[in-house]
Each structure stands twice: as structure tokens, then as C-alpha cells.
């Protein structure tokens, strides 16, 4: 093996940083959207209305049993068809844009399972107390149940977000330029796989490892004392 030549990394740092920014953006958008959508799904699943339960169950089980790469490719190809059906005209949707939607919809299934167990961990008396105060269902959820569920589940939600951050690398399947995609494109051009892939692995490790340590610290902080 020739000597490690980190010049190739330094020369291309702007392109890599751009990729990392895209990865972070997709992560944040999918996290916020996924938690919102996931919470709605969790409430549907726990509601007393059968059709809503069925919908949420099918949604969650479906996305949890398909490989993410397949969903990424399928959405990339099917979303434009759907848009065409809705608007009647061809709107080309780039790989980078479709990834936002894909991850939001896909991760919602996982976030919803977390929110569901969070909601179930809140004691029944809390709901009864909410109703006794004259709150409606919506208010009881908004002011009483969900804040506690969210707090209980915060560490798990964040751990799932770290998984999501790593999963964004799978947009490789549709050729979007995320952090890994950027490194891969540079490798195709400069033929320095050792330096590029090692750098990607080390950066991913450093980010995810520190984040998961922070989550661990947070876990002990936010635990509600009972």
C-alpha cells in the first residue's frame, strides 16, 4: 500500500462538508417531521376508532418490514407519478428532495412505536385527571399526556435519530450527494478509496459516538423521579 495521502481529503474538504451538511439537514427535517407524524400515528393506534387503528398498524408494520434502500428507490420513482396524478403535470423531483420525504415517512413508523410506548408509560390516572379538569381529548393529550410521554422517551427518540443520521448514507442508492455520497464521488475521480472511506468512517464514528454519549448523560438527567 502507498502511504496515506491526506492531501486528497484536504483538497476536497469543501465538497465533503457540503455532503455532511446535506446529511445533517435530512436528519433534522426527517426527525422533526417524523416525530410529528409518528405522534399522530401513535395516537391513531391508541384511539378507540377501529379504522384509525388499522391504518396506523398497517402503516407502521409496512415500513418496518421493508428495507430502507428499497423504500428510498421506490419513493424516488413513485413520488413523481403521484405528483403527476395530483397536479396533472410532470414535476421532476430530484434525488436530494425526494430523500427528505422518504426519510420523514419512513422514520415516522419507528418514531411512532417509540411514542406509543411513551404514551402507554403514562399512568391512566393522568388521563382521568385531565378529563376531570374539563379538558377535551385534544387538550388532555397536548397538555398532560404527550409532554410526559415525550420526556420519558427523549433518550430513545434521540438514539433513533442517531440511527437515522447513519441511515441517510443509503441515499447512495439514488445518487444523492450526502456525506458518504460525496466521498464516493471523489473516490471515483481521484481513486483514493483508502483515504476517503477511512475518513468517512472516522467522522461518522466521532459524531455518532459523541452524540450517543451525550444521550446517555441526558438519560440520567431527564429521568422523572417517581
Amino acid at each position: 500500500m502507498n502511504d496515506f495521502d491526506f492531501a486528497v481529503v484536504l483538497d476536497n474538504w469543501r465538497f465533503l462538508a457540503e455532503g455532511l451538511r446535506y446529511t445533517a439537514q435530512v436528519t433534522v427535517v426527517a426527525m422533526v417531521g417524523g416525530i410529528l407524524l409518528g405522534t399522530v400515528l401513535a395516537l391513531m393506534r391508541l384511539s378507540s376508532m377501529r379504522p384509525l387503528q388499522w391504518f396506523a398498524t398497517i402503516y407502521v408494520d409496512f415500513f418496518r418490514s421493508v428495507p430502507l434502500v428499497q423504500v428510498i428507490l421506490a419513493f424516488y420513482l413513485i413520488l413523481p407519478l403521484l405528483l403527476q396524478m395530483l397536479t396533472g403535470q410532470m414535476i421532476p423531483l430530484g434525488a436530494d428532495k425526494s430523500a427528505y420525504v422518504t426519510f420523514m415517512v419512513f422514520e415516522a413508523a419507528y418514531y411512532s412505536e417509540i411514542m406509543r410506548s411513551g404514551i402507554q408509560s403514562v399512568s391512566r390516572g393522568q388521563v382521568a385527571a385531565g378529563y376531570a379538569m374539563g379538558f377535551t381529548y385534544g387538550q388532555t393529550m397536548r397538555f398532560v399526556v404527550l409532554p410526559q410521554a415525550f420526556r420519558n422517551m427523549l433518550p430513545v427518540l434521540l438514539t433513533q435519530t442517531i440511527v437515522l443520521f447513519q441511515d441517510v448514507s443509503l441515499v447512495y442508492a439514488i445518487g444523492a450527494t450526502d456525506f458518504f455520497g460525496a466521498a464516493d464521488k471523489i473516490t471515483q475521480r481521484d481513486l483514493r478509496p483508502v483515504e476517503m472511506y477511512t475518513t468517512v468512517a472516522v467522522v461518522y464514528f466521532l459524531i455518532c459516538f459523541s452524540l450517543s454519549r451525550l444521550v446517555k448523560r441526558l438519560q440520567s438527567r431527564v429521568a422523572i423521579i417517581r
Partner: protein
Amino acid sequence: MNYHWDWLFFFQEADDGLKYYEWVVSGAAWTTGVSLAALVLALVLGSLLGVMRTTPHRALVAIGDTYVDVFRNVPLIVQLFLWFFVVPELLPKGLGDWVKQDLPYYVTAVVGLGLYTAARIAEQVKSGIHSLPRGQRFAGLALGLTEWQTYRCVRLPMAYRIVLPALTSEAMNIFKNSAVTYAVGILELYFQYKQIIEKTSQVLEITIVATALYFALAYGMNQTLALIERRTRVPGLIAGGKGGH
């Protein structure tokens, strides 16, 4: 929507003389093979690492912890690329060339997927062992068993049965994760899915079929493990009943 449904394309002949449905079948076979082989590796290595992390030896614990931290914090696709394009360059020349030229590439893919999954299994095994009362180990030692014997005869038989539901979901995940090996040239189900879309543009039909197959594989694994779970359940525990999912 002007999408042209055509379910019969599966019976058309592709470029290589095979029919498209045969591509799907061979893809599903590769997915199953790669996943099961990786699962065996992951179970063996994961158990070993999980046990190491519960021993009183500092060094063993450190090795196990480091392994889990490293393999859980790098994306699978990056790990696979490391095994394929980086590790052979770092090995001594002769060995590196052998890996690149003579070692079948699916072995490398199985190893990559297996090592990745091992970290997750190690977590489960460790938490299973930790969920047992300390008294179990003490009782074993008091009976004159060695440390290793307390694992083999007392703690592991209980720990495995406690974590079986969690292991079930890992075993189901491995089918999904195996889709990523397409990126290093394994002709598994997702690879064929992608290829069929490129050749025929029948996105919806093949998406439905591939999804159903992935679903069936995961469901088959779930049922197999549920059977094992019923057979091996510990009498008297609350969790002795229903299968996990």
C-alpha cells in the same frame, strides 16, 4: 394516472435468457443465503462479545465495549466499503491480493454484515445476562462450578431465553440490512429489484412483489423463532407466553 400495469412482464425473457421472475427468485435465494450465513456469524461472535462484556476481567470488557461502540457508530454501507476497498489495501501485499482476487466477494459481504450485526447481538446478550440475579452466579460458584461453567450451565441457558424476543427482531432486521450488500455487488433481491426497474420500468409491480418477499422472509424468521421460543420457554415466568414481533 397513465401508468401501464403489466403483471405478465415477469414471464418475459430478459437479456440473459432467463425470465424476470427467475431473477426475482434468484435474488430472494441470495438474500436468504447471505442473511442466514451472516446471522450465524453474528450469533457466534455476538454471544462471545456479549459474554466478554459481563466477565469480571477489565480487559475483556474493554475489548467488547470498544467493538460494540465502533461497529454501532459507523453506517453499514460504509463498513461494507471498508471491508471491500480499504482493508485489502492495509493488509500485507500477498494477503491483500488474495482477498481481492481469490476470496469470493460474497464471503466478504457475509463477514461485513455479520460483524455489523454481531455488535447488536452482543448488546442483547449482555443485557440478558445482566437481567439475571447475581445470586445465580454466586450459587453456581458455590456449587464448585468454574466461572465458565456458570455461564454454560446456569446463566446462558436463562439469558438466551430471556432475550429471544429481542434476538428475533435482530434476526428479522438482518434480511432488511442484507439489501445494502447490493452496493458491493451481491445479486440479492434488492439488486434484482433495481435491475428490473432499469430494464422494464414496471416500478409498481416489482415494488409490490419485492416488498411481499421481504415481508415473507421476515415473517418466516419470526415464526421459526416464535416456535423456538414456545419450545424453550422457562416455566413460571410471565414472559413465558406470547411470541415477540
